[in-house]
């Protein structure tokens, strides 16, 4: 079927099965490959996107469920995402980088939800995302750093 969605403020018409997970439509049909496949069962967070602002594992939501909705992927931008990018750069966070799309999107959702998260908030919120390289301590620091960058800018 034909499905209309908005990805990073751009309208797309996707012709695909309505059961297809959003992840594969984005990667294989739209051609935006920054959103990653890691597990296919919402266990690792590599495929994290925002759907109408809500943190979503795109491997586990069907196209049918996102009709006419607005998607933010790692190729997109938002105020919090930009501060996080700067902080990720500042802390030299990534190793292989593969999970970092999902980490950044999840962290964006965290900052959209909690303005100044504590370590405990970060632990709770970010534990849905696996980093096999083990950059967790840097991610934790970078999230705090993004908050301070944001506060400095205001």
């Amino acid at each position: 079927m034909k499905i209309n969605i908005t990805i990073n403020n751009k309208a797309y018409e996707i012709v695909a099965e309505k059961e297809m997970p959003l992840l594969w439509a984005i990667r294989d049909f739209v051609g935006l490959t920054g959103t990653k496949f890691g597990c296919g069962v919402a266990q690792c967070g590599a495929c994290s996107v925002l759907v109408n602002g809500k943190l979503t594992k795109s491997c586990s939501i069907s196209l049918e469920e996102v009709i006419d909705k607005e998607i933010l992927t790692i190729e997109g931008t938002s105020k919090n995402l930009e501060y996080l990018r700067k902080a990720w750069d500042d802390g030299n966070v990534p190793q292989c980088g593969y999970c970092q799309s999902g980490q950044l999107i999840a962290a964006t959702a965290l900052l959209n939800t909690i303005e100044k998260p504590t370590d405990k908030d970060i632990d709770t919120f970010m534990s849905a995302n696996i980093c096999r390289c083990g950059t967790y301590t840097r991610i934790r620091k970078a999230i705090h750093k993004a908050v301070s960058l944001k506060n400095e800018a205001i």
Partner: protein
Amino acid sequence: MSKIKKINRRDFVKLFGLASGGIILGCAVSSDKKDFIPKIAGTFQPNLFVQITKDGLVTLISSRSEMGQGIKTSLASAIADELEADWKYIKVDQAIGHEKYGNQNTDGSRSVRTRLEPMRKMGALAKMMLITAASKKWNIAANECYAENHFIINKSTKEKIFFGDLVESAAALEIPSEKDIQLKKVEDFKFIGKKLKSVDLEAFTTGKATYGIDVRIPGLKFAAIARCPVTFGTVKSFDKSKAEKVAGVSEIIALERLKPPTGKFFGMLGGVAVIANNTWSAFQAKLDLKIEWNYGKNEHFNSEEFKKTITQRVQEKGKLVPGSYGNVNAAFKSAEQTIEATYNVPFLVHAPMEVPNATAWFQKDKIEVWAPVQDPQTARSELAHFFEIPIENITINVTFLGGGFGRKSKSDFVVEAVAISKKINAPVQVVWSREDDVQHSFYHAASAQYLKGGVDKNGKITGWLQRVGFPSIVSSFKPLSDYASGFELGQGFTNNPYLLDNFRLENVKAEANLRIGWLRSVVHIHSAFGNNCFVDELAFASKKDPIKLHLELIGKDRLVKGKSDFPYDAARMKTVLKETAKMANWGKSLPENHGIGVAIHYSFYSYVATIVEVSVKSKKVKVENIWTSIDCGLALNKDNIKNQLEGAAIFGMSLALFGKISTENGAVQQNNFYDYQMTRMKDAPNIHVNILDKMQEPPTGVGEPGVPVIAPAICNAIFNATGKRYRSLPLIDEGLV
């Protein structure tokens, strides 16, 4: 890069003129010997690493695969340092898989160890030629000029010329010989030994980095393969009627197993391949296949029984391993007390975040591949072998690797993609599901080891008997390799860091019923676990502080020469341990329910000591702090090394707490991250890393040495907290997680 002119091969260093108006400097670099499997020394081959264009842009080639260890940045910084380049003009490209780059096999924590000096020479040579070009313009001697921050400067007039403006004249120059290359002094380093950020940060934080799974070419198909649950089982028959109705599916084909010849390559398992116009349809249709299998000889493999078998075998006599010394039996007879313990490590799988995948296009007489491979040259040779295509007609484009950890050293997934592309006559991307990755890997071997130690009346350790059994990596290359091989035992068993009075190592039979491979740190995971847990037990038995006993056992200052250029230096091992103890404030009083444990290990020629603090509440363990010191010789990129050791701590925690692959009736029982769990953010402790300043020493391994110490240090810390020993991993099986 075109029209490369070949010049005198005997010159160590060669220059290649480039039609596009830049200079490309190449170098013949000795291809290094494989550390683990001795081979005849490689030959000198021409290589290309440095390109400077008129706009001053310096493109450096990374010959090693980037899988998170930061090698693209590290090797480039070595070239750029000697070149006196301005970092903002540096761009790093990934080399294709080709022997002209020397050995590209990215494993064994050896890229910096083996490539630092050749890469520095590449930069130094480029700088020499730019200086010569400038000196000719000024009509002065070359030693009247120097290079600084992308300019050549006239010492007396302070005039300067931009690198880019010297490109044409430098390209016309004769090539200096190797003996004239002068490398910088340590104190003059600008990038080496400093903290450089990854050159790929922007690509990583914007989703622009292209991993294997992100390759998109016109007409690309996607494939998923159903493989037999039992290793090396084959397809008896299959019914595709339901699967082929899945929208998007174009073809469903049988794939024969390609068996590797003895001694090399990986082949592929075979099975039934579903080809579709998107990954999801291929995955879905695969689940709808009805396949009858011939399970074959591994059908009855049960890992729990195997654990019992090898655990039993290590209680009995094994084969004596060369390198044993003294007489342990006599030592045990005269000992005041003897201590015995048996340790187990289960099978493990790498589970890199990016699953195995490869994109291939087989066209008549040529093959092009895009893949996340650690060893692109083996992949290329393997394709030439199986598909009978001349090797020069095979191109391996190396993408970013979304983690490797040894899994992507094995090119079976590349062979699969090429086999399918050949059959369907179209470009195809094979993508493994996470379940495929967990269930059809080359596994880190399960091990059992028995240790017996003698303690005399003065508390001195007088004898050390160690019996080990684990399936050998060699079994993946040579059938019936039923004992761990010498190169494996050389990873921490025959060369433990201690000087003992009497030492005996025995090896027991351990058959392989899974494909056995190497995983980050390889056999050191077993040896460090046994050695360090046992030293802790001996310390308790002899009423000694564990660090004091480690220092006693390491013994007097000495150099132990092996086959390599890197002798084991006992003094460095002791320094690393003392530094860690200082950093962790060893001996401090701990909060209630907290415990502290230590482990040391020498691997990949680096010295590591780690102290772990845990808390154990309601029988659940939490890792609170990890302190790690490393002496890895010259530290090329300090922030990257720190990142590697932080990651190694998390990787070590994952295997200590959760990692276990088990089989029933030959089939792996785990599926995905819900039953093969990883350390997550909530589990991540404070990690404190100390890199010793050894800038005058040659660089040694970094990617792996931080892993093996973690599991034993955790177990020792739990003992310290609870008085209970845990000798079998993972700790989740003991109810501790």
